[in-house]
């Protein structure tokens, strides 16, 4: 573990969130691949929202940084992305799906899209009591097509090392992606 990981800053604790739009959770697993460095992360930041990892049902206000995995595939994803942008200082597009839709966007190959099935036509459930299922967008969108993004970390998934570097730079108040850093690669 590098020494700067265990130095606790004097300023107020940072508020970290993660969000998972249309993706496979691989980018979240890459975050968990920080392994014991997660303990150092916990010393710097509170995890205030992350459907995969904690129980906050509402995305809170005043989030300092949000790692967003996945493409924007449904109307619900789009609204959620906008809510994240309104309530978050720094938004990071984490991984190839968020950056250019990647595998999630392969559904553009389907002639009828995916939205026209009997199940969706019938959605609504018994006496219309179930809330409706999310409407798929006709095209899967990259995150940046919907909201402004402060940094992008490509990869399918990005390696834990690169996620760790980005988080370290964040709490050291440096630019999230170093301008003179190594080239970023997709895939």
């Amino acid at each position, binding site marked *: 573990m590098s020494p700067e990981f265990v130095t606790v800053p004097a300023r107020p604790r940072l508020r970290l969130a993660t969000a*998972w739009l*249309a*993706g*496979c*959770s*691989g*980018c*979240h*697993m*890459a975050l*968990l*691949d920080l*392994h*014991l460095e*997660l*303990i150092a992360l*916990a010393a710097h930041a*509170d*995890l205030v929202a992350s*459907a*995969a*990892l*904690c*129980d*906050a*049902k509402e995305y809170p206000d005043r989030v300092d940084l949000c790692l967003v995995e996945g493409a924007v*595939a*449904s109307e*619900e994803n789009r609204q959620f992305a906008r809510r994240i942008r309104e309530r978050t200082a720094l938004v990071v597009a984490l991984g190839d799906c968020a950056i250019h839709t*990647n*595998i*999630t966007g*392969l*559904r553009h*190959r*389907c002639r009828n899209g*995916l939205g026209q*099935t*009997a*199940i*969706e*036509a*019938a*959605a*609504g*459930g*018994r*006496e219309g*009591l*179930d*809330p409706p*299922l*999310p409407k*798929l967008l006709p095209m899967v969108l990259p995150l940046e097509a919907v909201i402004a993004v402060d940094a992008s970390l490509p990869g*399918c*998934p990005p390696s834990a090392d690169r996620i760790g570097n980005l988080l370290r730079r964040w709490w050291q108040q440096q630019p999230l992606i170093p301008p003179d850093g190594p080239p970023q690669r997709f895939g």
Partner: protein
Amino acid sequence: MTMERRLVIEPLTRIEGHARITIHRDRQGLVQEARLQVLERRGFEQFCLGRPFTEMPALTARICGICPVSHQLAAAAAGDQLLALEPPPAARRLRSLLALAQIIQSHALAFFHLSSPDLLLGWETPPERRHLFGLIAAEPELARAGIRLRQFGQDAIEAVAGQSIHGAWAVPGGGLHSLRVDGRDRIRDALPQARLDARFGLERYKQVLDRGGLADLEAIVSLKSLFLGLVGPEGQWCVQGGALRLIEADGRLQADQRPAGDYGQLLAEAEEPWSLMTFPYVRALGYPRGLYRVGPLARLNVCNQIGTAWAASELAEYRQRNGRIVLNAFASHQARLVEIVACLEAIEQLLEDPELLDPLVRHRASLNRLEAVGMGEAPRGTLFHHYRVNPDGLLEHVNLLVATGQNNLAMNRTITALARHHLDGLGTASIPEALLNRIEAGIRAFDPCLSCATHAAGQMALQVQLFDADGSLLAERRR
């Protein structure tokens, strides 16, 4: 007293995927039904059509970031059959090593990172602290053990496949490269600590169980169902290369030693208008009577034995505690820990196998068959990849029957039972957050992977009928 007829828990949290629970109650506030509604659709079965089957290991790995290995291996196994060949011995061993390592990392994630905040910190812990970081603060040694166990699995996968998530290794005919000596030694060097961590987790959880643990809910979440899993030729616990065994709730055999290609004879899929996830059932019993379960609980129910010493003794203790055929959904947590031990011991044996490092890891052939089913045990249960290709090897039909989908009926029954137990007659204002979390925990016990389960909406003939509470037909749809 306000009595909402519909309660919605959304989003479900500390699970893999996007879903909500909708609870329907009548005018007296009695729960009629709780439904798990899956909210995503990714369409792998559709967009893979027309692509070469050789792409499937890399493409379908992207179905899920937690169990990419399972999809890669099932796709490669289907590819082996399309080529009509068997991979070399070293490749078969490396595939087993990958499957075992993945079960360790996935079970560690499910138990330590996701469920243990409920099990060890307690239901009443406020949501701000009821997560992995809360566990790090409250029980740092246990959190470290869980994190290290997950790391053991991820590092072993990386040693074989070059990358812990979406590593490109398995291909039709075998794998892309052999395991290097230093890779094997890295795994071996990490084993002693992994064994200590697994023991620590087991002992800690047994303390919880000894103090009563989840015993008050046992009757509520005990569900009569069939169980499906792979077993070896002697009926032993097995995750790769075995055959299907299907048993009834009392242990009687429904089917045994059946090959992957028989899955369509054994199983069928139904649909409901309110979910994007299908409802598989045992064909011979019909829908919904043919309710069955897969996963750690099922694997420990269907197997006669686990071939290694420590796992065998943990299995014996597990069965002493829970019975020979375990119906209690919450016993899955202990089952996962038993399986982590079984995987560690199986990996230890594999590492001593001289054939493991053999440089020949791939057999080559051209397309020799047009239809194949690949299967294996994913962390969450039996996984099937069924492909049909044209003579150019382009996919014409893809059906993915994944573990979480197969548990769909059981998950809905379990949350309905929990909702009745916890919520019947309560006014909306008197339903605390912790109570809703207890219903969600019924889903977490299955460790669902909804990214996996939401590939397509039905390929089979379909009849859906919609009834109101009095049983009169509201709508009907056929396809």
